């Protein structure tokens, strides 16, 4: 196994365990790993921004294809950075005005089309289907999201939740019944969201523990085991010192 992979396994395991020590309590090992994380992430961002923006989006198109018009966004970008120089900080407003103006303009028609019209269109579906030879049918298959019964339930849900949110006056009479229905739907959706969040968080833990299991293999020199013992030892040492410093345990 290459030395760099071996070293990587030990470093990755150590840093994983350092972060996990937070489960005991906030401690220097966690803080060290936390600051390393921020530092490396920012460094990575700088490098990627340099490669993508300066090299691939600016230098190459200008140098190889003569796209000199790209000097305009560079100018706008530099105006943004004027924020750091108090005397000319107001210049950054021009850059922000451009970005926010274009962003708002781009967003309005697209959001209306995607999230309002399309969503309303799918909510107001036919309550009955015409069948060949005359007459109508009402499908009740719960497992088919497009069935008529589900279309009715969906419509009730959307209307009652919108009613609950938008009519913030005191809910009385029939309004109360609609609002209560809205709350019921909301609670079910929140429950489902909780269930999915649990699923997601557990998946992340599974991923990290799987890596620790892989690194417990003898071919890596069992870093998971050795570093676990070392980390526990360091935590004990740190706790003992803390207790000595404040004998009342505070």
């Amino acid at each position, binding site marked *: 196994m290459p030395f760099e992979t071996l070293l*990587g396994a030990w470093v*990755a395991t150590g840093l*994983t365990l350092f972060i996990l020590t*937070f489960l005991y309590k906030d401690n220097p090992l966690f*803080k*060290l790993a*936390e600051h*390393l994380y921020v*530092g*490396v*992430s920012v*460094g990575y961002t*700088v490098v*990627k*921004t*340099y*490669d993508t*923006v300066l090299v691939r989006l600016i230098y190459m198109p200008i140098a190889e294809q003569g796209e000199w018009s*790209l000097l*305009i*966004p560079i100018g*706008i*970008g530099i105006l*943004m*950075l004027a*924020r750091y120089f*108090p005397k000319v900080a*107001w210049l950054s*407003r021009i*850059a922000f*005005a*451009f970005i*926010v103006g274009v962003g*708002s303009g*781009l967003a*309005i*028609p*697209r*959001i*209306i089309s995607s999230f309002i019209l399309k969503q309303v269109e799918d*909510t107001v579906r036919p309550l009955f289907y015409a069948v060949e030879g005359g007459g109508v049918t009402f499908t009740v298959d719960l*497992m088919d*999201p497009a069935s008529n019964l589900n279309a009715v*339930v*969906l*419509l*009730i*849900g959307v209307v009652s939740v919108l009613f609950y949110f938008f009519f913030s006056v005191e809910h009385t009479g029939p309004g109360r019944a609609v609002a209560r229905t809205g709350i019921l739907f*909301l609670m*079910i*959706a*929140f*429950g*489902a969201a*909780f*269930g999915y969040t649990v*699923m997601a*968080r557990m998946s992340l833990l599974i991923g*990290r523990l799987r*890596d620790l299991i892989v690194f417990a293999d003898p071919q890596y020199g069992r870093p998971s085991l050795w570093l676990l013992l070392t980390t526990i030892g360091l935590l004990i040492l740190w706790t003992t010192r803390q207790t000595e410093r404040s004998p009342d345990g505070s």
Partner: protein
Amino acid sequence: MNFLRRQLPLLITFAMGVVFACQYYVPHPVSELLLTTVTKWLQIIGGFALVLGITSLFHLHAGKIRRKEPGWGYSGVLYASMVGTILVGLGYSFSFQQWILGKETIDGVRTMFGWIYTFMMVPLQGTMFAILAFFIASAAYRSFRARSREAAVLLVAAVIVMLGRVPLGEYLVPISGDATQWIMNVLNASVRRAILIGISLGAIALSIKIIFGIERAYLGGGRE
């Protein structure tokens, strides 16, 4: 001068907002060219926005180190790891005999920059979020109580979904899988749709307020 500082930004926002809102409905080649050009510009400007954010962090921790504030050593670690990553990512590699230019691998071989990414950044960020698994379990035990009918409904829905999304749940309570599908596809979808419509209406209202200069918070700092 007052015009440049106050009115000009509002005028630019208004003009850009109106032009690009209308552009969507005008598929003329000139209008399409305008869209292509300006979205390309936004990509580049987006890069500068990142620089803005990073520089703030740079200043913050440099100040902590200079003033030797409590915990400045950690700021030193942050600074060193940040500078180290940048040097390794943009520097010259003698083993590869070329500039690294932010490449994690060159011809399939991992660079030092790639090593930092794979063995430091990925496990650090991954674990940082993985510990939330423990806290969500603890929170579920301490505060997930059926204090009212509504809370009981929430609890039951959560339990059904947790059962229905794992093989053991589907095996022990076979109906939980179908029940979860129905909850997600119909009940959950209806609520999420109402929320989506509500949020979208809010976003549109905010965009219109920005375009017409009613909402100006984005212009923020800078001396008048």
